[in-house]
């Protein structure tokens, strides 16, 4: 299986490199964290607002850089490709192969992440040049845990979108449901507002949803805010695992039922 995955990722990586301009645009399109960084750093720097913010201006800068990094590795778009595959009849070829089509979509994402790696490194370097005060090197433990949390977040977001993508078997434009889920993703994940700036009760509620674990959780680990000894770390991974298993189970059921009524239109 590993050999198959390696070949699939390598081909998808080559395919992504064929679209260099698209990769540039992707990276540019992911500058939202830097816009939010500007807003939060400016607000936290204002002496009148002292004590109203959960982090210092320097930590906000670090946090949103980490958000940018996490976003680079957790962007999931399989629903759009899956929908296109169903509408155009291209899913047929994936179904004819003796390998679950899921691997095609996973390898496409991993291949794309690989293709974006140099661009992401360049942006990070540029950030450190422009904001030398926010420069830091994560400890090996933070880095290891951070990378684990990023891929756990990727798996979680992928599993959620996989469930939504399965609705393409019943609805022609299931991607519009994904767009609906984008709203809570933006506001509850920590992408626009760090979770520490939520009121305590709201934060407790939000922490029960899968969204904070998609961005905020890995970002806080990467910046060293959540350490290996913090009980919230284990709790976070446990919540991710629970949601992931739930979505995977639901996705598997939807896949089986969807295939039963799949008409392979367009093929």
């Amino acid at each position, binding site marked *: 299986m590993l050999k198959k995955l390696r*070949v699939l990722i390598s081909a998808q990586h*080559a395919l992504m490199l064929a679209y260099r301009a698209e990769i540039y645009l992707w990276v540019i399109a992911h500058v939202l964290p830097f816009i939010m960084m500007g807003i939060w750093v400016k607000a936290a720097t204002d002496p009148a607002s002292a004590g109203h913010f959960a982090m210092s201006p320097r930590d906000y800068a670090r946090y949103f850089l980490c958000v940018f990094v996490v976003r680079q590795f957790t962007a999931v778009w399989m629903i759009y490709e899956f929908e296109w595959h169903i509408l155009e009849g291209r899913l047929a070829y994936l*179904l004819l*192969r003796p390998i679950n089509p899921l691997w095609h979509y996973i390898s496409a994402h991993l291949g794309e992440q690989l293709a974006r790696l140099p661009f992401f490194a360049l942006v990070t370097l540029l950030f450190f040049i422009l904001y030398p005060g926010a420069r830091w090197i994560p400890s090996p433990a933070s880095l290891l845990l951070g990378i684990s949390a990023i891929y756990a977040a990727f798996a979680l977001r992928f599993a959620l979108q996989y469930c939504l993508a399965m609705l393409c078997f019943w609805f022609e434009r299931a991607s519009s449901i994904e767009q609906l889920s984008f709203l809570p993703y933006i506001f509850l994940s920590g992408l626009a507002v760090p979770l520490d700036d939520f009121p305590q009760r709201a934060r407790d509620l939000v922490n029960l949803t899968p969204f904070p674990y998609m961005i905020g959780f890995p970002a806080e680990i990467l910046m060293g805010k959540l350490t290996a000894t913090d009980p919230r770390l284990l709790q976070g991974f446990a919540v991710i695992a629970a949601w992931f298993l739930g979505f995977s189970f639901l996705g598997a059921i939807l896949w089986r039922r969807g295939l039963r009524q799949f008409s392979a239109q367009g093929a």
Partner: protein
Amino acid sequence: MPIVQVSDLAKSFQVSASQPGFANALKHFFRRTYRSVDAVKPLSFSIEPGEVVGFLGPNGAGKTTTLKMLTGLIHPSAGTLSVAGHIPFQRHNAFLRRITMVMGNKQQLLWDLPANESFAINGAIYDIPESELQSRIAELSELLNLTKELSQPVRKLSLGERMKCELMASLLHRPEVLFLDEPTLGLDVNAQVAVRNFLREYNRRYNATILLTSHYMADITALCKRVLLIHQGRLFYDGPLAGIIDRFAPYREVKLDLTEPVDRESLAAFGEVESAEGRAASLIIRRELLTDTVQRLLASLPIADLSISDPPIEKIIADLFTQGTMK
């Protein structure tokens, strides 16, 4: 023992039905109505290993739906089927390794990469060892006369070259059963001939079973000894290609070379006039009347030469489908 066994196979789809117009569109938005369409009515046939069978029918006859059921892409509504000892819609890997499907209007190759990249993926997915993969690529590319095309991005290839690469990608794992849906669609005559020759050779070398749909009768006549005719979801002929003439065309074509022109009215006294121009004419005459009519023709008209032939199979099938005369 048949490699493809189909018994009372049927498929119906629920299709949403809406009427044109603004009010109807609104009504349809709030309250969807559906109707059931029988794409394939109970269908039974079997195919022996190594057979090349043509699957013919007009657009919408149910050919592609049947192929999709045979490859496991869709679930049948009724009936039983078995392909290479497997139930297709269970989609077991052991089954998928033994079959392939080529769709003339769809592609599996990665559009922006050379075909070789797609071959490498298929090699890994089907667990073909690297040396064996290279030897199969060499063998198939030689048969299809492809060399440098394999290292060019697929989008830069001509339609014919692309289809050849599609065939290569679909056959690298040496499937035993090939389902080919319009494999020569849109190809020029040379490319069509190349694809036909290749399929014939593949069938000969590997005793592969082929079920082929095509709107080009030349594909069928060149490759298939047996044909299945399907219309409106129902199978109405299963037998040798030549048998279609006996069953559906109980007439002969009589071509006349005349020493002087004869008007149409005079020719019509002997049979249906297919063409009459100058000193050449062609008549359609029922088989049971042939001997008597030819004698009368020779006695009555200034004939220099006369030939009798079966009507072209393309014409018979086209007539069957357009006139809906199959029984």
